[in-house]
């Protein structure tokens, strides 16, 4: 059984009399543990696909199975549960709660999952230490750098041990150095067996993935294995390569 199975997935937007085909009949399977990049020009439907995969949005038509359960037939509450248990989101604009400190931000999914206070505190601390922010737990988002904010967001995405980590332009708001930090985190997670899907329009980001899907006008233009994925370890050896 595949982790993700989608068939003829379509998402339409009605704008007055005009119908926009954000996604047209997209079919796709993704296996457990894949590191996948979704690419394509602006407006090609990357975010739309991402929102559908993350159960934030429901398709106009088509099938979507996650871990064997039919997501396209679920109600709001079930979708919320799936988002809580199975999905970890990382957004371009971090999307942290501005008034809460890093620890509370990371605890939030656990609060909604119903963990007791002490347990969720420990889990959140562990996740923050994992992204090397053990010394910043009581900082509010505006007291952290962009890279640190994105690491808090990643800790939040990880803390509940989701099946998939979905990242929409995770390095879009970061300079290239900090972007590399984030990508090395993804790489590490991927090595540990996490499933990672990254939406990006930067080739530099996409080349870290093991598989690259390119969208154009809501259709899959190509779906190829990256034969020679770029790793951060190789980054260290870069001078030898050149």
């Amino acid at each position: 059984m595949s982790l993700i199975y989608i068939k003829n997935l379509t998402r339409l937007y009605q704008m007055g009399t005009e119908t926009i085909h954000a996604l047209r009949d997209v079919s796709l399977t993704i296996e457990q543990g894949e590191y996948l990049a979704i690419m394509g020009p602006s407006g090609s439907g990357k975010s739309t696909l991402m929102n559908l995969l993350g159960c934030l949005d429901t398709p106009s038509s088509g099938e979507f199975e996650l871990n064997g359960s039919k997501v396209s037939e679920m109600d709001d509450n079930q979708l919320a549960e799936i988002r809580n248990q199975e999905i970890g989101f990382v957004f371009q604009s971090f999307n942290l709660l501005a008034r809460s400190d890093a620890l509370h931000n990371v605890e939030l999914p656990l609060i909604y999952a119903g963990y007791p206070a002490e347990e969720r505190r420990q889990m959140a601390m562990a996740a923050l230490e994992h992204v090397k922010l053990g010394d910043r737990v009581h900082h509010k988002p505006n007291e952290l750098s962009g890279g640190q904010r994105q690491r808090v967001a990643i800790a939040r995405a990880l803390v509940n041990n989701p099946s998939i980590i979905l990242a929409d332009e995770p390095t879009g708001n970061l300079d290239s150095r900090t972007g590399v930090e984030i990508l090395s985190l993804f790489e590490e997670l991927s090595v540990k067996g996490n499933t990672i899907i990254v939406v990006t329009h930067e080739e530099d980001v996409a080349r870290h993935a093991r598989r690259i899907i390119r969208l154009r006008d809501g259709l899959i233009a190509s779906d190829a294995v990256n034969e020679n994925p770029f790793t951060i370890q190789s980054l260290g050896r870069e001078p030898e390569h050149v």
Partner: protein
Amino acid sequence: MTLGAEITESLAIALAALRANKLRSGLTTLGIVIGIVTVTLMGTAIEGINQSFKKVVSGLGTDVLYVQKFAWFSNDEWWKVRNRRDITLATARAIERQVTMARVVVPEAFSRQTVKHKNRSASSVAIVGTTDQNFLARGFSISSGRFMSAAEAEGGRPICILGADIATKFFRNESPLGEKITIGGNSFEIVGVMAPFDKFLGLGSDNHVLIPITQLKSMFDLRPEVQILVKVLDVKMMDDAREELRGILRKIRSVPPGMPDDFGINQQDAFIQRFNQVGGMLATVGLFITGLSLFVGGIGIMNIMFVSVAERTKEIGIRKAIGAKRRTILIQFLIEAATICLFGGLIGLAIAFPITLVMSKYLSGTMSITVALVGLVVSLVTGVVSGFLPAWRASKMNPVDALRSE
């Protein structure tokens, strides 16, 4: 997510949101504060009036029937009843002989006279002529001395019992017992002083003097207007006793069969009924005004909650993306609204309490726990009701759209 955790988390969010917008929350709360001040003051006033009234009424006695010329509350036209014959002392004696269901039968007659003692004088004092059993029917107590004896009631020496006010007016330091006062030119010996009554809005008075009814008749009024107090054996027998009394009176006054009564048998119930009517109307008007001010306060809350939801659309999106259910978001905003209102309620109580202390000088009773609790519950309910629509809107938001908002 458990409901307990949900509420704790929501409370924390609500407090943080209130702290972040102190001025705005404060101004919004003002509407609720005013509403709750009105609720509690109105509640205290109504409660106070009821209590005072009950005290006064209990002085009338639940088990006493008042035989008088007219019924207290009747729809008879005045010109039809004005020629009724008087109730007299003889009527009282006749009742006393015939009645079976009464404990005591006591006549009372009234006169206004000038009372003098040495160089002090008071004009237009209520002089009550009655018999030795009056205190059994009226249920008052004597603070010093004694009440009149049966022999005195039948017309022995001229003695009197002073009401508390008169006693303090004439005798500041010395004891009035054994002293003589002049009532309308006749000398009376003081044998007792009555304990003070509870007062109610100036109603009921201790400014009176009790004398034997025979003395009143011979000295001030040969044909006094008499009312007869009939204390019934048991409260449960009120209706039967009333019927018995009615029969006796019709016989004494020879009312032909088929003709309506030419007298009134009054009882506390009639008074209470009328009071409840007036009190009910008062409460309705009060509640309407209160409701109006709370309604205005509630609209303010609703308005601010809509603003709050709109401002925090992104936050709602984030929470939903992370796994918050509709119910969670709904509860979060409901609790926020309820918290604002509860704050308003507490402030309102803090303002209303000293005012009720001042009010208690005129009405019995300050703000009761019940009124305070009702105030808090009302503020809570206002919060939940007015917060519902905004919270509902927040809970229904589509996460993608909410996340996209800035």
